């Protein structure tokens, strides 16, 4: 410029140049301004410009978006609308610091919804004086959400770990508890897995067999069979499909009762538990009881025989003449004594059943003949009580293999009951028929019946119906117990139907060998 100062002719052109320059500068400025404006508008980050007192002077579209307020609504408002109570703190900070970078605050939008944000701010200065602040905020809600979820996930993971640990501890405790129970159990316990290997034997069982766990654990049935001490048990296990209260005599003074049960886990069988219960004492007491009754009954038979024979000889006149009145009394006494003998015989039969000494010697008989011979014993009683007695015979000859003496007792007991508990003039029907491969025998009476609530005890020892005890004092309550044992020893079944004051029907079946063979031939 100074070099061309002397050239007046160049003044207008200099002016023109300057004007042009200014114009260009203005254009540049306008361009720059619009550039800044565009950038300001385009930025996805909310940015606004504040006065030193915190009044919004300008806000970009992103600010409009996050706040939900239009620019014209924002301009002139304090940033209190954004930061509420925290406003003063922010303003103080702005005054103090040159720069605020990433400080977390809560931003409130138009609807006062809190939004976590990270705040950036920088003062704008002119000649050292602060004329305003640029403030930018960064929406953290998405990050916060992720962070929260992460925290939750982490927490959940920690919880899970803790639960697993607790579960492990609990399982450990349970295991120890179970082991303690197994170890201290007074019954012997043996656990076999699905391959029938002995997995566990508790101390009590080791004591029973007088061996240690080391000798047997992990071994298969075959291997165990070779151990002499275990032989009786293993043989039992191999023989029986299902072991339920099986008696096992190990030594003179050690009788066990073995029961096995499947162990299931989630409905799948994982093995078998064998429980050995020491019943030595019970068995001893049971035997003593049976022996006692047996001896008592035996001892009673001798004096009863003496009485019977003495009375008989008096009645027969062997011991001299007696008056008619004396005879009558003696005859009654004789009858009472006979009843006593029957009772004692019943008792003895029961003890024999319990001792397992009730022997059966089966022979083939015509069943009808057997029944008729029993009925003959009751002819007089049927006549005296005016009972309408009927025998329905089978359509063909039925031969059965029975112990005649015992079968007579069974039939006699049933007919005797029917007659005894039927009032004079009542009906008793005996029927024998062939049902499939069985013979079915029944005695139907129109008697007093068995009370409904007592029917499940009918076949137990010493059972007597409450209504029967009242009407007649005779009867030991052993007849049906004995009968049931006799029928079942012949592989038959016994049952009854009864209604109080209407009558009872007792049934039993016996397998017919010939019918069964006939049945087999058909196949």
């Amino acid at each position: 410029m100074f070099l061309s100062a002397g050239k007046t002719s160049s003044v207008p052109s200099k002016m023109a140049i300057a004007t042009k320059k200014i114009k260009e500068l203005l254009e540049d400025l306008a361009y720059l301004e619009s550039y800044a404006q565009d950038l300001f508008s385009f930025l996805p980050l909310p940015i606004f410009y504040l006065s030193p007192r915190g009044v919004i002077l300008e806000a970009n579209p992103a600010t409009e978006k996050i706040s939900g307020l239009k620019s014209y609504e924002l301009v002139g408002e304090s940033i209190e609308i954004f930061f509420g109570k925290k406003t003063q703190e922010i303003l103080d900070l702005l005054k103090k610091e040159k720069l605020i970078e990433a400080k977390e605050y809560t931003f409130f939008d138009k609807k006062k919804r809190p939004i976590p944000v990270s705040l950036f701010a920088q003062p704008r200065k002119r000649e050292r004086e602060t004329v305003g602040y640029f403030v930018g905020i960064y929406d953290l809600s998405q990050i916060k959400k992720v962070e929260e979820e992460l925290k939750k996930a982490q927490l959940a993971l920690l919880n899970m770990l803790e639960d697993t640990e607790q579960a492990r501890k609990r399982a450990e405790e349970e295991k120890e508890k179970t082991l303690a129970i197994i170890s201290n159990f007074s019954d012997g316990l043996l656990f076999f897995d699905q391959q029938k290997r002995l997995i566990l034997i508790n101390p009590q069982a080791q004591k029973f067999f007088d061996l240690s766990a080391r000798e047997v654990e992990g071994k298969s049935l075959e291997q165990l069979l070779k151990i002499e001490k275990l032989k009786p048990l293993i043989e039992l296990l191999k023989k029986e499909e299902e072991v339920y209260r099986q008696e096992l005599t190990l030594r003179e003074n050690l009788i066990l009762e073995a029961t096995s049960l499947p162990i299931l886990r989630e409905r799948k069988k994982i093995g078998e538990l064998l429980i050995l219960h020491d019943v030595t004492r019970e068995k001893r007491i049971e035997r003593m009881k049976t022996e006692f009754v047996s001896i008592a009954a035996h001892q009673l038979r001798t004096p009863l025989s003496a009485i019977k024979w003495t009375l008989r000889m008096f009645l027969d006149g062997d011991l001299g003449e007696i008056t008619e009145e004396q005879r009558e009394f003696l005859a009654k006494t004789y009858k009472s004594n006979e009843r006593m003998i029957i009772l004692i015989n019943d008792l003895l039969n029961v003890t024999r059943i319990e001792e397992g000494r009730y022997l059966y010697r089966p022979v083939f008989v015509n069943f009808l003949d057997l029944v008729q011979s029993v009925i003959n014993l009751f002819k007089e009683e049927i006549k005296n009580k005016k009972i309408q007695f009927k025998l329905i015979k089978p359509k063909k000859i039925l031969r059965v293999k029975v112990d005649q003496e015992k079968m007579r007792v069974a039939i006699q007991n049933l007919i005797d009951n029917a007659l005894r508990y039927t009032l004079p003039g009542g009906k008793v029907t005996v029927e024998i028929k062939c049902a499939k491969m069985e013979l079915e025998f029944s005695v139907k009476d129109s008697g007093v019946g068995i009370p409904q609530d007592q029917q499940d005890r009918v076949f137990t020892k010493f059972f007597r119906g409450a209504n029967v005890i009242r009407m007649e004092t005779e009867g030991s309550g052993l007849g049906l117990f004995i009968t049931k044992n006799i029928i079942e020893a012949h592989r038959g079944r016994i049952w009854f139907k009864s209604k109080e004051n209407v009558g009872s029907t007792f049934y039993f079946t016996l397998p017919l060998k010939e019918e069964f063979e006939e049945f087999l031939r058909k196949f």
Partner: protein
Amino acid sequence: MKKILIVEDEEILLHLLQKKLSQEGYQVGIARDGLEGLQKMREEKPDLVLLDIVMPRMGGFEVMEEMRKDKELKDICVIVISNSGQPVELDQAQRLGAKDWLIKTEFDPQEVIEKVKKQIGK
């Protein structure tokens, strides 16, 4: 006159049988246990022995075993008087040579006479 020996520890039964059999015309001896029974058998040589099973000192089965070993006694007819009448007991009596048996509570004295008569007659 036929001789009968009753070996029975129950006093009443013993006397009743003795009376009944005597009335029937038999000569009757008595013993209260097995040992005494064997001794009487050797002394009296009876035609028939009515023998109880359960007795003090020596029981009926042992008596029969002794009789089998003794030439003089082994042919004497024995009828067992049983208290229980259990098949096992009767089987054993039969094995040891008893000709017949009777169960005390089931037989009348008259029936005893009949059994005796069947074996040795009047």
